[in-house]
């Protein structure tokens, strides 16, 4: 079984998605069944991930647990799977956060079958993307990842979803086509499929190196909310109400980040690398603008989106730094970041739902002590309370940025500060008693189960703060 662990991690959610799709949707018990099965599959996937960790040499760098599956003989394409500590951490945090979101999402949603089947498909493809160890597997999962997201955005987007769908699909298609072009050029140059970790040994020259590297660059940028490519993401992510869909949509930029992580550091030649400051400038402009917009925006959902964007770009700048030592830190920080967003997202969904039901606005947290505690704790953790690995690792990343460029460091800090201010301001509004409308409101708080889940998440983060890989035995 150990020879097929990674494949199993991809196939299990895929089979689950097939099961969910084949279930009847017209009966209440069938929907409940679909939920139970989906949650169990996600849970088993996490157990399998933890089991996979036990075969992992955490001290060792590079790809481990290599699995090879022949696909086509001519042209010869074999799917190569493998994982390193970074991809394992990312897979664990994403699986865990989607499980939490699935448990905490209200079951009274539109098209629950579509939601859960797409989520399981997304998990399967994302696991595949994180464990892809050769250029073709990487491209296949990179491109296929947009499929479940297209379905989710089209089903749960806002009124403008038709146009968003078209824009989103075209953006992704352009990115995927560019990546495919670059990979086919590499394929032809090398005479076959190559492992991802040998990308650095490519001897590309002349125009070819520009075509290949800029195609790869734009392919990954198409998944990131960087100016001037940011518009589609803002129009989608900031409008999604369902926490599971919001989370999934916010994980997509991480796929672009992961792509850069796999392709860029130490692989890109100096002739291309010299353009990196231009991209860093674009990142910092985006960070500043989006944080300033979030400050003026009234919607807390938008503020959360701004927060995720700023932090995602922070990690991206970290990836682009000439030092290659930050990979592990970014991995640990991302682990906490994803869990924090998950919890904030579902608590916010609960608050928004109550606001909509009761027509209440600010000060609502005064009547929801559990939600108030959760939201306060996690917002503080998100902006740097020293209880999670986010604190340590972001500290190191930002220090390295300062080390690299003082101006860049100041601007990064400034945008992080503004976005933190925006979140705290909203938290204050939600907690401010002077805005509370009436006092006779009962049973609107988070359920005990959800509260316990928040606390478990916080415990996981706290243990990771003390020892990042505490769950590896």
């Amino acid at each position: 079984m150990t020879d097929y662990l990674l494949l199993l991690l991809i196939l299990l959610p895929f089979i689950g998605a097939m099961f969910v799709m084949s279930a009847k949707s017209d009966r209440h018990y069938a929907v409940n069944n679909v939920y139970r099965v989906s949650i169990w599959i996600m849970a088993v996937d996490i157990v399998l991930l933890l089991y996979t960790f036990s075969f992992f040499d955490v001290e060792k760098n590079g790809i481990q647990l290599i699995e090879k599956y022949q696909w086509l003989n001519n042209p010869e394409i074999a799917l190569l799977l493998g994982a390193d500590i970074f991809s394992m951490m990312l897979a664990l945090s994403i699986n865990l956060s989607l499980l939490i979101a699935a448990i905490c999402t209200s079951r009274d949603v539109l098209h629950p079958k579509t939601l859960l089947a797409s989520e399981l498909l997304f998990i399967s493809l994302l696991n595949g993307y994180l464990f892809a160890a050769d250029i073709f597997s990487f491209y296949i999962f990179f491109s296929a990842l947009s499929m479940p997201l297209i379905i989710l955005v089209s089903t749960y987007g806002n009124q403008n979803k038709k146009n968003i769908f078209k824009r989103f699909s075209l953006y992704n298609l352009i990115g995927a086509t560019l990546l495919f072009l670059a990979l086919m050029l590499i394929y032809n140059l090398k005479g076959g499929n190559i492992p991802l970790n040998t990308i650095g040994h490519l001897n590309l020259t002349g125009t070819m190196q520009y075509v290949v590297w800029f195609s790869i660059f734009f392919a990954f940028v198409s998944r990131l909310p960087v100016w001037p490519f940011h518009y589609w993401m803002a129009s989608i992510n900031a409008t999604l109400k369902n926490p599971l869909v919001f989370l999934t949509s916010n994980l997509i930029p991480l796929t672009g980040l992961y792509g850069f992580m796999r392709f860029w550091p130490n692989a890109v030649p100096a002739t291309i690398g010299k353009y990196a400051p231009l991209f860093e400038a674009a990142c910092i402009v985006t960070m500043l603008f989006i944080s300033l917009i979030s400050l003026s925006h009234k919607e807390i959902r938008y503020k959360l989106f701004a927060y995720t964007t700023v932090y995602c770009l922070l990690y991206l700048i970290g990836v682009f730094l000439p030092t290659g030592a930050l990979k592990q830190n970014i991995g640990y920080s991302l682990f906490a970041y994803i869990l924090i967003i998950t919890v904030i997202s579902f608590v916010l969904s609960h608050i928004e739902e109550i606001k909509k039901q009761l027509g209440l606005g600010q000060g609502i947290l005064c009547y929801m002590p559990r939600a108030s505690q959760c939201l306060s704790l996690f917002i503080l953790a998100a902006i740097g309370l020293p209880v999670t690995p986010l604190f340590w690792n972001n500290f190191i990343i930002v220090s390295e940025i300062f080390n690299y460029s003082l101006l860049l460091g100041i601007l990064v800090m400034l945008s992080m500060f503004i976005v933190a201010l925006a979140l705290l301001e909203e938290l204050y509004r939600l907690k401010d008693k002077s805005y509370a409308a009436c006092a006779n409101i009962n049973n609107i708080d988070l359920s005990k189960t959800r509260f316990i889940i928040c606390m478990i998440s916080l415990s996981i983060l706290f243990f990771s703060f003390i020892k990042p890989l505490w769950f590896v035995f």
Partner: protein
Amino acid sequence: MLKNIISALPEISLLIGILHLWFLFLAKTEKAKVYSAVARFWLLVSLFFSVLYYDKTFTSLLQPNSYTLLFYLLIGFFAYIVLGLSSYWFSAKNRLGCRYDALILLALLCFKLMQETVSLLVLFACYVLLNVMEWSLKGLNYDKKTDPENARLFWITLTIIILFALGLLYLSSQTTAPLSYQTIQTILTTQSDSLPCYLSAVFITIPFLYSLGIVPFHITAEDNAGKSILPVSHYFATIAPIALWGVFIKLNLQVLSPLKADFSPVYVLFALSSVIFGALGVNARINLYRINAYAKTYYLGIMLLLLSYFKAQTTYASFLIGLISVLAFNGMYLVFYSIKSRGEYLATTASLSGLAENKPYTAAILIVSLFSLIGMPPLAGFLAEMNIINGLISQKSYISLGIILFFWLVLAKAGLELIKAAYFEHRLKIYDTENTLLIFYIFLNILCLALVVFNPFNIIETMKDMFYVLYL
């Protein structure tokens, strides 16, 4: 004698099928499904004997081999679906469909002979017969409206056939031997500088470009799909392109190859024009059949571009792309058969509105077909995309590659519009109940796309081996 009869069993089966249909007609059978079942039965018999005697022949004018078998099996497969689905259309219209079934069997016979022949005279005869047959198929549109366009198209077709005949006449004047592929190739090799010889080769090529609908010979391509009845449109989208492409490849490699240096740039020009025209046309139309016709033009452009290098790798890639695109087009036609409201088959993009709500299986085949056409991995279209890019990079045709990729995105935009209508628009029409057999065909088509993707039993490699027999 007996040996000859046995070798001719695939052709004889088709002829018996036509006779059987005629007898049923004389016996006043009134069910379209019966005619369709009979036609499909004889088609299966023909396919069975083709597999059994795949390299046997009753005349030296034909040279069947694995290559011809591969194409015959493929067109046989699509013909089976076309015949099966047409019966529902004819039943809904209270028509027999007898003539249609017989014409399809006759078309298969023509295609089979065109594939297997090594004589240009047989090829010409079959081409003429095929045009007559296709003209009759287009005449099955019983609206009885006189279209002034028809007369013009008739004269264009006739001119092209006359050009074909002139080319053959000139070449036959250059030799006393029978007009076999080998003889013509020798003439073209020895007289490659002669203008009449060159023009003769051009006159032989044009009819195929015309029938395939390659720009600038695409005059009838859109109307074949758009003005014909649904079963005829289905025939033009699936059977005709794959069959004619098989013949065209063979003609180019076994007859026209001495002129490849002259033909190649012209093919590239036609191919890129088809790509551009096809992609723009898809975006400009709202009739689903016409959209499909333009998408076909786009893909045929890519196939011609790959053929223009006259290399084994790119030629095989052109075949594979043709197969995958025709599978996707077939999937689209399954959707067209499914969108029926109060007995009327709908044909506009707006008629797809709300499809996903009502017909999830049909919407699934639509999305799979369209994503496959767009080249989304791991669907079959991804393999096509890979072969195209790989083929063009290996030939260092970077400009062509750029043009194709750009118009790929233009084509994808139209595909996304269709998905948008099916999944996001509100329902405008109440669809009729879906036929169970249609669902069977939907699954069959998805299965075929899956077979291409998952490559069980090395099916792709087997097809490749069969294709490469052409180079032996």
